[in-house]
């Protein structure tokens, strides 16, 4: 009996070490997402059941810069890594599914949210950096309160990108005076 337990434990540990929590989606998009324009790509996300890391990087690159200035995932990843929006330590493949905490880390990095003590101390070591970022992003209402390991749907990614866009627009100085509340707020055509 003890032997069986040992064998099971070794098998489980080996499986976790080799495969980890990696997940690859079954969904096949009707066309290669890289061929979509920015607006097309954003609206394509609303129909995706699970987004990949590459799609998440592209969406966040559009959110950060307002436009996608890169031709492929490698260029995009390098640019985002240089801006500390993604990290090499995650070792995520382009086709790997994106989870909530990774999306939250990218969102908080783009918005430059004020880090907490725990995220500064432990996150700098790579220990729980995405989980702390998820807490920050949820508190800033960039992402919903969900399990950090949950894989992101296209709709959730689109919503988060829109919230990031709102945050950046406010930060960049477009004040609430531009809010449209009544016809008097709009100049006559």
């Amino acid at each position, binding site marked *: 009996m003890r032997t069986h337990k040992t064998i099971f434990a070794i098998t489980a540990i080996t499986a976790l070490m080799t495969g980890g929590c990696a997940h690859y989606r079954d969904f096949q998009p009707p066309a290669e997402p890289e061929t979509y324009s920015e607006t097309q790509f954003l609206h394509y*996300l*609303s*129909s995706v059941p699970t987004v990949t890391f590459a799609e998440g990087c592209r969406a966040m690159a559009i959110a950060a810069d307002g436009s996608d200035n890169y031709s492929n995932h490698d260029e995009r990843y390098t640019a985002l890594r240089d801006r500390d929006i993604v990290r090499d330590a995650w070792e995520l493949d382009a086709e790997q599914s994106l989870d909530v905490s990774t999306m939250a880390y990218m969102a908080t990095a783009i918005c430059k949210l004020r880090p907490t003590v725990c995220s500064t101390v432990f996150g700098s070591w790579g220990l729980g950096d995405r989980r702390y970022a998820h807490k920050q992003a949820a508190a800033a209402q960039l992402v919903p309160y969900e399990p950090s390991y949950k894989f992101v749907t296209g709709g959730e990614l689109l*919503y988060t990108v829109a919230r990031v866009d709102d945050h950046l627009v406010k930060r960049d100085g477009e004040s609430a005076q531009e809010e*449209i*509340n009544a*016809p008097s707020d709009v100049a006559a055509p």
Partner: protein
Amino acid sequence: MPNIRVKQLATAIAFVSMVPLMSMVTVANAQQSTSQPPVTQSNSGAIQKTMTPVGTASASNPVNNVNPKSKALPQATLAANTNSGSLKATVVEIKGTVETAPDGADATDPEVWKPIKEGDQLGKNVMIRTGLRSRCVLMFGEEPNQTVISVRRATLARISEFAKTPNEQRIRMGLGYGAIRGGSSEGTLRSDVVINSTVATLAKRGTEGFEIEVEPTTGRFRISLAQSGLVEALSNLSNQRRSVAPGQYATNGNIAKMWVNQDIFDRCVRFYESEAVSETDLNFIARETTGLSNLGPGGRGLFETSGRNLGSIAQALQDNGSNNSPTTLLLPDGLPSVRPEGNFGFGPTFRVVTPHFERPNVNRMLGRRTRTHVPRSASLRPNRLTRHRSSSRR
């Protein structure tokens, strides 16, 4: 007998106003709303007349081209124009990427989506999609019965209906996902705006600053009202409805709960730590001594926006003279201090923070001595504030 007719008419009108709320718009293949024909068929002829669109005389006119004839037309003439086309909305502002397509177009189809520009006119059954940092402002109707709709970033929307009746101006929008904001000014006509989505419906009654935001595929939504009027939020998933007053919002999470819960958890809580309070903040806090900021869910500004400070609470505070009546307090060192009453937003830290900023006007307002008169023991350095605050609480 007249009472029975009145009841029947009231029931029919209530039915007409309720059923359109139930119509929903699908995300990508938004179809034309089918809720209206049954309504008109199931009601009396008089009600049918009130729901027919106005003639094309004003349909092709720009928004600012007021057509006085349309207001002066008798009801029978208006009702006779049943076969005329619906009105068109005018695009008054474009920012970023805004594209339109015919009804039923795929949101990712590159062939059918065409960019629009300011001054374009959009009729019903037109889909609108926006990119990031983009928005499109549509103006419905003519002065003084104008309604403005702002289709915000990353949104898929649709104009389902725009018609004018002798009594009201009907606008029906579909929202697949994203956000729509707007408002209307009611003049001679009643503004009837309904924004449908798969998860929630917003019905507006002459309001300013309403907004509906729908998260794609998750069922989460948020319906809010910023300035004035009244909005009715309806959750299509749970079939629950809620009237949203200025300063309030309804989401999929709180639509079934009491508003008092929302007020408690959204209360504006401020922490007057020395690191957190700027000089401007401190001046504001010192001058705004009504304490009303603690009563509104969004702070004093929202409290005023909602109009509730015009009510009995603020008036009662002023009438009773309790707003600024002084109260004697004992400082931690045992010295008495006179403080204007009604300011229950200050924590103990504030008394310690004040000497560091060294503003005589603040100290004078609060009835305190300036720093030069404070004993040396009370002149604390910032790194000792926490210890002092703790001792004062004990």
